[in-house]
């Protein structure tokens, strides 16, 4: 009988907090968006599923061994944990969790050893997160794969479009200011690191957003990743009104000069040129842009096609599965159901909107100074969100001029946006570290 009671108490229904129930619904909602509405399914299916797994009460899949010991341990275990963490034995659970999170690494190692001796293990998703994201490897490997899938031809044929990719990153920094403003106004409580991580949503680039937030604000990673991928899927809805509002019918009809042929040698040299510029001027962006250039060089050099194929297929797919589940581990109720998440979702869409606007405006500015006019509709593609944003440019362009195919022209700013947000990521990581004295 006692056994039955224990079992019932260990069952999910009895333990489920309302937060976990809400997150279960959120996870199902993400799966619905991914499967029915085709919202970036490659990421949102694993993220949504991981989010559900992370919120199974009593399974503790997203907790480390030490956190599990706090969640499930008896009085003796808690007392010993308190002693390890330098608290008195009557300390509450929340105090213990907080102390564990902010303890020096050596103490965390001791706590983990103690928890393992007491029979607790790391949760499955916690292990995935440690290996895939905390180490930084998964976003970097995905970036390598993206590099191996990227054709810089349209960019090389028209290098001016790099400026569009630069301008659209203003969405990032405006959002940083917005987040800081909310904090100063007392509405939210974002640190400067939080603000920088939130801003990167405006980069419209999933792996970059995950990489930056894993370094600067791991607790916000779940909300940031969900916002980034959701808004990327919403690009066809977010961008067109802004694009139409900022351009005249005449501008939208501009036909652009046919792109010149770009030689194989230019395509091989470009990633090396980019790498060297990064090496000389922006070492903080070296991991992201280094792996990106490596992937692209493997693609273009033509002598390692086996490696390039693997980077574009088996390797990126395997990494995506574990990256998604790992992001899902950050959808645990106690981290995700926080007023900050609402702030992140609100700021994220602002970031997309501003990036779209500044991209379009920059195209109009360039037109003031140059002979070969740019159709400002391709400016919005500078936010990246490859290749969705470029398709949106094409579609809106066709509405005004059914014979005006902007797709290839928009691919230039589109991939420029990837570079731009990686550069912005490097700058922000480097500046936040020097500001916070790390």
């Amino acid at each position, binding site marked *: 009988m006692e056994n039955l009671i224990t079992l019932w108490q260990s069952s999910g229904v009895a333990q489920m907090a309302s937060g976990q129930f809400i997150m279960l619904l959120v996870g199902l909602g993400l799966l619905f968006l991914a499967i029915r509405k085709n919202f970036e399914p490659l990421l949102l299916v694993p993220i949504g599923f991981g989010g559900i797994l992370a919120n199974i009460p009593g399974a503790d899949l997203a907790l480390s061994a030490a956190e599990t010991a706090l969640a499930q341990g008896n009085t003796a275990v808690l007392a010993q944990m308190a002693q390890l963490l330098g608290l008195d034995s009557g300390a509450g659970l929340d105090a213990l969790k907080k102390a564990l999170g902010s303890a020096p690494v050596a103490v965390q190692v001791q706590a983990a050893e103690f928890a393992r001796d007491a029979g607790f293990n790391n949760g499955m998703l916690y292990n995935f997160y440690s290996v895939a994201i905390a180490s930084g490897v998964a976003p970097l490997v995905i970036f390598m794969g993206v590099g191996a899938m990227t054709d810089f031809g349209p960019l090389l044929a028209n290098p*001016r479009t790099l400026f569009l990719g630069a301008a659209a990153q203003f969405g990032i920094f405006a959002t940083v*200011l917005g987040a800081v*403003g909310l904090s100063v106004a007392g509405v939210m409580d974002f640190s400067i690191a939080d603000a920088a991580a939130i801003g990167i949503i405006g980069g419209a680039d999933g792996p970059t957003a995950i990489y930056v937030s894993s370094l600067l604000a791991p607790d916000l990673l779940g909300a940031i990743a969900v916002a980034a991928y959701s808004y990327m899927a919403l690009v066809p809805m977010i961008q067109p009104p802004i694009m139409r509002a900022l351009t005249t019918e005449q501008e939208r009809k501009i036909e652009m000069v046919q792109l010149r042929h770009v030689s194989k040698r230019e395509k091989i040299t470009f990633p090396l040129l980019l790498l060297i510029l990064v090496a000389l001027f922006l070492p903080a962006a070296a991991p992201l842009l280094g792996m990106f250039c490596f992937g692209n060089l493997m693609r273009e050099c033509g002598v390692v096609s086996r490696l390039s194929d693997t980077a574009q297929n088996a390797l990126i797919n395997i990494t995506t599965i574990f990256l998604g589940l790992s992001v899902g581990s950050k959808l645990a109720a106690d981290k995700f159901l926080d007023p900050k998440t609402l702030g992140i979702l609100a700021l994220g869409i602002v970031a997309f909107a501003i990036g779209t606007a500044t991209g379009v405006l920059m195209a109009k500015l360039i037109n003031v100074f140059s002979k070969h006019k740019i159709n400002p509709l391709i400016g919005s593609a500078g936010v990246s969100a490859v290749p969705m944003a470029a398709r949106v440019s094409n579609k809106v362009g066709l509405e005004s001029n059914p014979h005006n195919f902007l797709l290839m022209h928009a691919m230039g700013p589109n991939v420029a946006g990837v570079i*731009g947000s990686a*550069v912005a990521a490097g700058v922000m990581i480097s500046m936040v570290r020097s500001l916070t004295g790390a």
Partner: protein
Amino acid sequence: MQETLLQQGLDITLFGMGIVFTFLLLLVIGTSIMSRIITRHFPEVEPASHSPSHKVGNDSARLHAVIKAAIEQHRQRR
């Protein structure tokens, strides 16, 4: 003295946008120079690169054409 949060945000924004633009400006310049050098001094010998994927595409296209022809023949025969 620690800067205020607002000041820090402004710093990140100003320097951030500045560096993004400066870096991409350097990249535009570098790319243009690179393209010019390669186009002038190291032009490609082959008229057009026949990448393997292209070849597969062509093969496949030819296969389709052949099969289409075979189907037509087959229909005409009946």
